[in-house]
Protein backbone atom coordinates (compact mmCIF):
# COMPACT_ATOMS: atom_id res chain seq x y z
CA UNK A 1 0.00 0.00 0.00
CA UNK A 2 1.68 3.17 -1.09
CA UNK A 3 0.97 6.30 0.90
CA UNK A 4 0.34 9.51 -0.91
CA UNK A 5 3.27 11.78 -0.04
CA UNK A 6 2.27 14.89 1.81
CA UNK A 7 3.84 17.18 -0.76
CA UNK A 8 1.01 16.22 -3.15
CA UNK A 9 -1.56 17.51 -0.69
CA UNK A 10 0.43 20.69 -0.15
CA UNK A 11 0.68 21.36 -3.86
CA UNK A 12 -3.07 20.81 -4.25
CA UNK A 13 -3.72 23.18 -1.35
CA UNK A 14 -1.46 25.81 -2.87
CA UNK A 15 -3.10 25.55 -6.28
CA UNK A 16 -6.59 25.94 -4.85
CA UNK A 17 -5.47 28.78 -2.58
CA UNK A 18 -3.88 30.72 -5.42
CA UNK A 19 -6.95 30.16 -7.57
CA UNK A 20 -8.97 31.72 -4.75
CA UNK A 21 -6.59 34.66 -4.53
CA UNK A 22 -6.79 35.24 -8.27
CA UNK A 23 -10.56 35.03 -8.02
CA UNK A 24 -10.71 37.66 -5.30
CA UNK A 25 -8.49 39.97 -7.32
CA UNK A 26 -10.04 39.78 -10.76
CA UNK A 27 -13.76 39.23 -10.29
CA UNK A 28 -16.07 42.24 -10.10
CA UNK A 29 -19.15 40.42 -8.84
CA UNK A 30 -19.24 40.49 -5.04
CA UNK A 31 -20.80 37.04 -4.86
CA UNK A 32 -17.97 35.64 -6.95
CA UNK A 33 -15.44 37.30 -4.65
CA UNK A 34 -17.03 35.61 -1.63
CA UNK A 35 -16.99 32.27 -3.45
CA UNK A 36 -13.27 32.73 -4.04
CA UNK A 37 -12.78 33.40 -0.33
CA UNK A 38 -14.50 30.05 0.31
CA UNK A 39 -11.98 28.49 -2.05
CA UNK A 40 -9.13 29.85 0.05
CA UNK A 41 -10.68 28.55 3.27
CA UNK A 42 -11.14 25.10 1.75
CA UNK A 43 -7.52 25.07 0.62
CA UNK A 44 -6.28 25.69 4.15
CA UNK A 45 -8.66 23.03 5.47
CA UNK A 46 -7.17 20.48 3.06
CA UNK A 47 -3.74 21.49 4.32
CA UNK A 48 -4.73 21.04 7.96
CA UNK A 49 -6.31 17.64 7.46
CA UNK A 50 -3.35 16.40 5.42
CA UNK A 51 -0.93 17.36 8.15
CA UNK A 52 -3.19 15.96 10.82
CA UNK A 53 -3.04 12.59 9.08
CA UNK A 54 0.69 12.88 8.42
CA UNK A 55 1.70 13.80 11.98
CA UNK A 56 -1.01 11.63 13.58
CA UNK A 57 -2.17 14.60 15.62
CA UNK A 58 -5.87 15.25 15.97
CA UNK A 59 -5.42 18.97 16.58
CA UNK A 60 -5.44 19.62 12.85
CA UNK A 61 -8.90 18.19 12.42
CA UNK A 62 -10.21 20.10 15.44
CA UNK A 63 -8.89 23.30 13.90
CA UNK A 64 -10.69 22.50 10.65
CA UNK A 65 -13.85 22.16 12.73
CA UNK A 66 -13.40 25.69 14.04
CA UNK A 67 -12.39 27.10 10.65
CA UNK A 68 -15.62 25.67 9.25
CA UNK A 69 -17.56 27.43 11.99
CA UNK A 70 -15.89 30.76 11.30
CA UNK A 71 -16.43 30.35 7.56
CA UNK A 72 -20.13 29.76 8.07
CA UNK A 73 -20.42 32.83 10.30
CA UNK A 74 -18.48 34.93 7.81
CA UNK A 75 -20.69 33.84 4.92
CA UNK A 76 -23.84 34.74 6.83
CA UNK A 77 -22.64 38.22 7.70
CA UNK A 78 -21.09 38.81 4.26
CA UNK A 79 -24.29 37.92 2.44
CA UNK A 80 -26.30 40.15 4.77
CA UNK A 81 -23.96 43.01 3.91
CA UNK A 82 -24.41 42.27 0.21
CA UNK A 83 -28.17 42.41 0.58
CA UNK A 84 -27.92 45.74 2.37
CA UNK A 85 -25.58 47.08 -0.33
CA UNK A 86 -27.85 45.93 -3.11
CA UNK A 87 -30.79 47.58 -1.43
CA UNK A 88 -29.00 50.91 -1.37
CA UNK A 89 -27.37 50.94 -4.79
CA UNK A 90 -29.00 48.20 -6.88
CA UNK A 91 -25.67 46.94 -8.19
CA UNK A 92 -23.11 44.42 -6.99
CA UNK A 93 -20.25 45.48 -9.19
CA UNK A 94 -17.41 46.29 -6.79
CA UNK A 95 -16.15 49.06 -9.00
CA UNK A 96 -19.32 51.04 -8.36
CA UNK A 97 -18.68 51.26 -4.62
CA UNK A 98 -16.02 53.90 -4.83
CA UNK A 99 -16.97 56.51 -2.24
CA UNK A 100 -13.98 55.63 -0.06
CA UNK A 101 -11.47 55.64 -2.89
CA UNK A 102 -8.77 58.23 -3.00
Amino acid at each position, binding site marked *: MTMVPISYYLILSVVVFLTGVVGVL*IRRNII*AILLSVELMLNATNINFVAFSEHLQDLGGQVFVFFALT*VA*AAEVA*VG*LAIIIALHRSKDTINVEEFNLLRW
Partner: protein
Amino acid sequence: MELLFFGYFAGIIALTAMLVVALKNPIYSALSLLIMFFHVAGLYVTLHAEFLAAVQVIVYAGAILVLYLFVVMLLNLKRDDRYHSQWRIAAFVCVPLCVEFLVLGVSGRVMTRPEQTAAPSGDGLAAAPAIGDNTLAIGETLFSTYLYPFEVASLILLVAMIGAIILAKRDIMEVSSDG
Protein backbone atom coordinates in the same frame (compact mmCIF):
# COMPACT_ATOMS: atom_id res chain seq x y z
CA MET B 1 -4.35 2.46 -5.45
CA GLU B 2 -4.60 5.32 -2.99
CA LEU B 3 -2.73 7.40 -5.53
CA LEU B 4 -5.55 6.77 -7.97
CA PHE B 5 -8.20 8.05 -5.57
CA PHE B 6 -6.09 11.04 -4.65
CA GLY B 7 -5.45 11.80 -8.32
CA TYR B 8 -9.14 11.74 -9.13
CA PHE B 9 -10.18 13.91 -6.18
CA ALA B 10 -7.31 16.35 -6.61
CA GLY B 11 -7.90 16.69 -10.33
CA ILE B 12 -11.59 17.45 -9.94
CA ILE B 13 -10.89 19.84 -7.05
CA ALA B 14 -8.35 21.82 -9.06
CA LEU B 15 -10.55 21.85 -12.15
CA THR B 16 -13.69 23.00 -10.38
CA ALA B 17 -11.71 25.59 -8.40
CA MET B 18 -10.57 27.15 -11.66
CA LEU B 19 -14.09 26.95 -13.02
CA VAL B 20 -15.39 28.89 -10.01
CA VAL B 21 -13.11 31.76 -10.92
CA ALA B 22 -13.51 31.54 -14.68
CA LEU B 23 -17.27 31.19 -15.14
CA LYS B 24 -19.13 34.45 -15.60
CA ASN B 25 -22.54 33.39 -14.34
CA PRO B 26 -22.55 33.40 -10.52
CA ILE B 27 -24.94 30.45 -10.34
CA TYR B 28 -22.57 28.33 -12.44
CA SER B 29 -19.71 29.35 -10.15
CA ALA B 30 -21.71 28.33 -7.10
CA LEU B 31 -22.60 24.95 -8.63
CA SER B 32 -18.98 24.32 -9.54
CA LEU B 33 -18.08 25.14 -5.95
CA LEU B 34 -20.64 22.57 -4.83
CA ILE B 35 -18.88 19.86 -6.85
CA MET B 36 -15.61 20.95 -5.30
CA PHE B 37 -17.05 20.66 -1.78
CA PHE B 38 -18.15 17.08 -2.39
CA HIS B 39 -14.74 16.11 -3.71
CA VAL B 40 -13.00 17.76 -0.77
CA ALA B 41 -15.21 15.65 1.48
CA GLY B 42 -14.09 12.60 -0.47
CA LEU B 43 -10.49 13.64 0.05
CA TYR B 44 -11.11 13.87 3.78
CA VAL B 45 -12.43 10.30 3.76
CA THR B 46 -9.20 9.08 2.16
CA LEU B 47 -7.33 10.94 4.92
CA HIS B 48 -9.26 8.98 7.57
CA ALA B 49 -11.21 12.07 8.69
CA GLU B 50 -14.72 10.74 8.17
CA PHE B 51 -16.42 13.00 10.70
CA LEU B 52 -14.94 16.05 9.00
CA ALA B 53 -16.15 14.77 5.64
CA ALA B 54 -19.69 14.54 6.96
CA VAL B 55 -19.48 17.98 8.59
CA GLN B 56 -18.07 19.41 5.34
CA VAL B 57 -21.00 18.10 3.33
CA ILE B 58 -23.59 19.22 5.86
CA VAL B 59 -22.19 22.67 6.58
CA TYR B 60 -20.55 23.73 3.31
CA ALA B 61 -22.63 22.00 0.68
CA GLY B 62 -25.85 21.93 2.64
CA ALA B 63 -25.93 25.32 4.35
CA ILE B 64 -23.39 27.78 2.98
CA LEU B 65 -23.97 27.02 -0.66
CA VAL B 66 -27.73 27.08 -0.23
CA LEU B 67 -27.35 30.52 1.36
CA TYR B 68 -25.31 31.71 -1.63
CA LEU B 69 -27.87 30.41 -4.11
CA PHE B 70 -30.68 32.07 -2.16
CA VAL B 71 -28.92 35.42 -2.29
CA VAL B 72 -28.04 35.11 -5.98
CA MET B 73 -31.62 34.30 -6.89
CA LEU B 74 -32.98 36.95 -4.54
CA LEU B 75 -30.89 39.68 -6.10
CA ASN B 76 -31.71 38.42 -9.60
CA LEU B 77 -28.27 39.05 -11.01
CA LYS B 78 -27.50 39.33 -14.68
CA ARG B 79 -24.44 37.66 -16.11
CA ASP B 80 -22.81 40.82 -17.46
CA ASP B 81 -19.75 40.41 -15.31
CA ARG B 82 -16.45 41.13 -16.93
CA TYR B 83 -13.12 40.76 -15.27
CA HIS B 84 -11.68 43.56 -13.19
CA SER B 85 -9.93 46.26 -15.16
CA GLN B 86 -6.70 45.49 -13.34
CA TRP B 87 -6.69 41.76 -13.99
CA ARG B 88 -3.35 41.87 -15.73
CA ILE B 89 -1.70 43.11 -12.54
CA ALA B 90 -3.37 40.30 -10.60
CA ALA B 91 -2.12 37.69 -13.07
CA PHE B 92 1.34 39.22 -13.02
CA VAL B 93 1.44 38.79 -9.24
CA CYS B 94 -0.08 35.35 -9.04
CA VAL B 95 1.61 33.44 -11.86
CA PRO B 96 5.16 33.75 -10.43
CA LEU B 97 3.80 32.85 -6.98
CA CYS B 98 2.23 29.70 -8.36
CA VAL B 99 5.38 28.73 -10.24
CA GLU B 100 7.49 29.35 -7.16
CA PHE B 101 5.30 27.18 -4.96
CA LEU B 102 5.27 24.38 -7.48
CA VAL B 103 9.04 24.47 -7.76
CA LEU B 104 9.41 24.42 -3.97
CA GLY B 105 6.96 21.59 -3.64
CA VAL B 106 8.53 19.42 -6.31
CA SER B 107 12.17 20.00 -5.52
CA GLY B 108 12.11 20.12 -1.72
CA ARG B 109 11.66 16.57 -0.52
CA VAL B 110 9.26 16.81 2.42
CA MET B 111 9.81 14.04 4.97
CA THR B 112 8.11 10.80 4.06
CA ARG B 113 6.28 8.52 6.40
CA PRO B 114 9.00 6.00 7.46
CA GLU B 115 11.18 8.84 8.69
CA GLN B 116 8.88 10.13 11.33
CA THR B 117 9.07 7.21 13.73
CA ALA B 118 9.44 9.55 16.69
CA ALA B 119 6.17 11.38 16.07
CA PRO B 120 5.77 14.57 18.10
CA SER B 121 2.65 13.43 19.97
CA GLY B 122 2.64 14.35 23.59
CA ASP B 123 3.65 17.98 23.58
CA GLY B 124 0.46 19.08 25.19
CA LEU B 125 -1.40 18.54 21.92
CA ALA B 126 -3.94 15.78 21.50
CA ALA B 127 -2.06 12.55 20.89
CA ALA B 128 -3.21 10.06 18.29
CA PRO B 129 -5.79 7.80 19.87
CA ALA B 130 -5.57 4.11 19.23
CA ILE B 131 -9.32 4.01 18.61
CA GLY B 132 -10.39 3.45 15.05
CA ASP B 133 -13.46 5.66 15.18
CA ASN B 134 -12.73 9.16 14.01
CA THR B 135 -15.91 10.69 15.44
CA LEU B 136 -15.20 9.29 18.89
CA ALA B 137 -11.65 10.56 18.77
CA ILE B 138 -12.63 14.05 17.70
CA GLY B 139 -15.35 14.17 20.32
CA GLU B 140 -12.97 13.18 23.06
CA THR B 141 -10.39 15.83 22.18
CA LEU B 142 -12.90 18.53 21.31
CA PHE B 143 -14.73 18.38 24.61
CA SER B 144 -11.68 18.01 26.82
CA THR B 145 -8.62 19.74 25.43
CA TYR B 146 -10.38 22.25 23.19
CA LEU B 147 -13.42 22.99 25.30
CA TYR B 148 -12.79 26.72 25.60
CA PRO B 149 -12.45 27.34 21.83
CA PHE B 150 -15.61 25.29 21.36
CA GLU B 151 -17.58 27.63 23.62
CA VAL B 152 -16.07 30.66 21.90
CA ALA B 153 -17.15 29.21 18.55
CA SER B 154 -20.72 29.08 19.77
CA LEU B 155 -20.41 32.74 20.73
CA ILE B 156 -19.13 33.54 17.22
CA LEU B 157 -22.17 31.87 15.71
CA LEU B 158 -24.51 33.81 17.99
CA VAL B 159 -22.90 37.12 17.04
CA ALA B 160 -23.03 36.24 13.36
CA MET B 161 -26.71 35.38 13.60
CA ILE B 162 -27.57 38.65 15.31
CA GLY B 163 -25.42 40.62 12.90
CA ALA B 164 -26.90 39.03 9.80
CA ILE B 165 -30.44 39.68 10.93
CA ILE B 166 -29.75 43.31 11.81
CA LEU B 167 -27.87 44.00 8.58
CA ALA B 168 -30.39 42.48 6.26
CA LYS B 169 -33.66 43.67 7.68
CA ARG B 170 -35.32 46.85 6.52
CA ASP B 171 -35.07 50.04 8.50
CA ILE B 172 -37.37 50.03 11.52
CA MET B 173 -38.54 53.58 10.80
CA GLU B 174 -39.52 52.54 7.31
CA VAL B 175 -41.59 49.65 8.54
CA SER B 176 -43.47 51.62 11.19
CA SER B 177 -44.34 54.41 8.75
CA ASP B 178 -45.98 51.91 6.37
CA GLY B 179 -48.18 50.26 8.98
